[in-house]
């Protein structure tokens, strides 16, 4: 199997630390006037997105360009995909054009893992179904570590539609490897009990107050209406019981930060006041996304 990045679960702690350290090197660049390196000059990266995405696709494109690589983005609609070509055939065609890596987002869990068994080109998973979103977890860790010296012992609450969240799974795998304590919280229909077996140090609760109590980090998840295949909860009640409001923050540690992978739905999973709260680091996450993806691209291709 070629060396890509399929998920956090397979990564070692040292491997993650190396990416995070390298991402830190790239951080100052983001605010310089000249933002371009030539580390990956002459390299070609294909972004293949089978699902709508603005921030992740743009972030990968910018990361590639800041490293001097060429990047081509393909979306599923308006390509051969909509003409009925199978995933394997599409990828074989792209691989024949000899890109140095394929960044892929797909609606099916495991689609990049399946392809990695059949393709010579390294694949970077930019989110697969309800499975993993490894670069999101890496940028979240980078963002936490910009404010805390280490992850070990931190209490991290992840709140929302855990069942359908690839962000939650990748974060659980990453945080657990570093000894953080993770509390997953959501309505029981979106919180299968087997989540407790994902990794060591995971506990579950259906009570948002219990989740937030003494938390160092509060990670809110988007309510993924497009992944709700049935009425898993009464939507009209969601914000009342699982939306994050300012008063909840009194329960957390005084310096707790609020995170969200975006795009945010003000008034659905968090109140507008929380989104604009001084310890909300949502835009820092976006900025770190580029630095982390530069580190990942450099590791995979460089």
């Amino acid at each position, binding site marked *: 199997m070629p060396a890509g990045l399929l998920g956090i679960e397979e990564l070692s702690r040292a491997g993650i630390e190396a990416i995070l350290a390298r991402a830190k090197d790239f951080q100052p660049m983001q605010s310089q006037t000249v933002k371009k390196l030539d580390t990956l000059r002459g390299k070609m990266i294909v972004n293949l997105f089978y699902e709508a995405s603005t921030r992740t696709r743009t972030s990968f494109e910018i990361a590639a360009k800041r490293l001097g690589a060429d990047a081509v983005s393909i979306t599923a609609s308006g390509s051969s995909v909509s003409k009925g070509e199978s995933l394997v055939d599409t990828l074989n065609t792209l691989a024949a054009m000899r890109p140095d890596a394929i960044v892929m987002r797909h609606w*099916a869990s495991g689609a990049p893992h*399946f392809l990695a068994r059949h393709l010579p080109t390294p694949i970077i998973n930019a989110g697969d*179904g309800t*499975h993993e979103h490894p670069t999101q977890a890496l940028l979240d860790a980078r963002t936490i570590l910009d404010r805390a010296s280490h992850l070990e012992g931190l209490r991290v609450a992840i709140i929302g539609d855990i069942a359908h969240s690839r962000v939650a*799974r990748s974060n659980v795998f990453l945080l657990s490897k570093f000894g953080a304590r993770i509390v997953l919280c959501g309505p029981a229909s979106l919180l299968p009990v087997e989540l407790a*077996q994902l990794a060591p140090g995971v506990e579950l609760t259906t009570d948002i107050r219990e989740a937030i109590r003494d938390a160092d980090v509060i990670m809110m998840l988007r309510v993924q209406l497009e992944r709700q*295949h049935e009425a898993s909860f009464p939507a009209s009640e969601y914000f009342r019981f699982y939306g994050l409001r300012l008063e909840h923050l009194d329960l957390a540690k005084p310096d707790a930060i609020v995170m969200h992978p975006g795009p945010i739905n003000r008034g659905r999973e968090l109140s507008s006041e929380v989104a604009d709260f001084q310890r909300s680091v949502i835009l820092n996450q976006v900025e770190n996304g580029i630095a982390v993806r530069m580190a990942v691209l450099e590791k995979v291709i460089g």
Partner: protein
Amino acid sequence: MSIVIKNGRVIDPASQTDRVADVLIVDGLVAGVAPNLSSPHAEVFDATGMIVAPGFIDMHVHLREPGFEHAETIESGSRAAAAGGFTSVCSMPNTKPVNDSVTVTSYIVERARRNAVVNVFPIGAITKGSAGEELSAIGGMKEAGAVAISDDGLPVMNARVMRRAMEFARSYGLPIIQHCEDLNLSAGGDMHEGAASVRWGLRGIPSAAEDVMVARDLLLAQLTGARYHVAHISTRNAVAMVEYARRKGLAVSCEATPHHFALSDSDMAAYDSSYKMKPPLRSVDDREAVTEGLVAGTVSAIATDHAPHAGSEKMQEFERCPFGIIGLETALALALEHLVHTGKLTLTRLVELFTVGPESVLRLGRGTLGTGAPGDVTIFSTDLSWTYDVNQSFSRSRNSPFDGRTFRGGPVATVVGGKLVWRRDGA
């Protein structure tokens, strides 16, 4: 067709035989089981050191003809059956068109007569088009050769329709075979709902999807007095409920597939569609319950649910791949490995599960080496070492999780109606 099978250990549970003897078949029928038999025109097969058993019956296969001949035909499926030691197979009705009429049943019988190397017995659909609404031509299909009815793969969700189907099946003396899955509970699921599905972000099929329908059907079987058989049982609760119903004296039975006693969801390779089937590979506890059911006799038959799919159909995103794996050629070897070599079952009990068990449900007049019975014989070894290469399969499809596996013991030769239809290379 005449053949004498010499010096094998003859195990025929139906006649309580277990001794070294010759089996003589004359003109397609068993003429005798005794030492030193011979017949002037009979072919001779030396079975020294091997087990000689009544021909195995697989009561649950998909031969895909008519309609899906790119995945399997009656001929290719029957060759795979022969190579697995099966002399009789029952073909499920989810063909295209669905086998819900005398025409399709007769077509399958005729195609099998011309092309199959083993006996093929069609199973008719319970409802027209297996749509779950209107009963199909059950009596006519029986006259044309159907040996049971089932809407396999598309379980009858409407309890009232199922009740009526059971009543009709009972009038015609046919067993009714149900693939137990509450389609509302399983909707969208791609594997067993458990730790692995949650880890991989795949939607789950809870064990309860099977249990709920088994419970309903057992109550309906009690109401109607029908002979009722649970296909590919896979959960602890379902096994317990069938056991309870049998103790109450209901005419109910169930089968298990080799993959459900050999594998659990913890054996799956992530996102590998060779492990995708319905019911899904369940938890370790469910797998153990199925094995316990085989040992206790609650599960009275081993059936493969041989389900060929063309390679391109299985080379997709996991959730897009169709359900099902092929299994005819690996069934006996898996049963030996998991049930006999582990000391859980005697060879006699194993042979029962492939012969007397399905025979008692289907009433084909087979599954024994008694004098005058059809001359179907399965010859196998308990210690032959061999490796399964799916690319050498007689099936037209390659969807097996057991490719490359080395087994101890397996089929050596297969005799149908006194004719040697398959023998292992070098045997």
